[in-house]
């Protein structure tokens, strides 16, 4: 039972990892996962206003519900091209 959480770019540097797991019983929506991980990695807090969320490879809002088996990505605004 887990939600796979991915970090990219500056958020991966801050978390010190590119991937972690969250127990789905402890969270309800995307922002609750962010809140939980911000307690674990306090430096994430300063990204609260700019972080983008992707749930199963699609952009998602903070209130999107999460469930067991989901892949949730946290990342900064994109800068490719």
């Amino acid at each position, binding site marked *: 039972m887990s939600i796979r959480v991915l970090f990219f770019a500056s958020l991966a540097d801050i978390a010190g990892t590119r991937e972690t797991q969250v127990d789905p019983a402890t969270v309800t929506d995307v922002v609750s996962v962010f809140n939980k991980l911000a307690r674990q990695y306090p430096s994430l807090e300063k990204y609260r206003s700019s972080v983008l969320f992707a749930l199963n490879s699609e952009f998602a809002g903070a209130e999107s519900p999460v469930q067991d088996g989901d892949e949730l990505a946290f990342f900064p*605004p994109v800068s*490719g091209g």
Partner: protein
Amino acid sequence: MIRLVRDVIDIRKVADSLQKPEDGAVVLFEGVVRNHSQDKPVRFLEYDAYEPMALKKLEEIESRAKKEFEIRDIAIVHRLGHMDIGECSTVIVVASAHRGPAFDACRFAIDTIKKIVPIWKKEFYEDGEVWIEGTP
């Protein structure tokens, strides 16, 4: 045609593989690594991506370009990893019967890549490195 690659992109090969006899215009765009960011000298770049989502978003751009512009085909190749100054990070090739839609679709593709495709660049300077967040 959509690709994420880690080696040098040969834009001529991409264009040759796309072009067909019915095309009257082939527009080629190369995004290249610049030696400065604002006034700061840049030594090199590294690109990171959320690859499955980046491919999905590039495919969306490909299908929107084909639907919204009168083009025959489009190819988008984005390179990831380390890139030196002058190297090409992004190639877009658009083939169509006439030049107007080809230019327009190419502009749409690069502008949309910079907004919705989860790829990030890190700039390396003499005195440090910074992840770039968002594009102007």
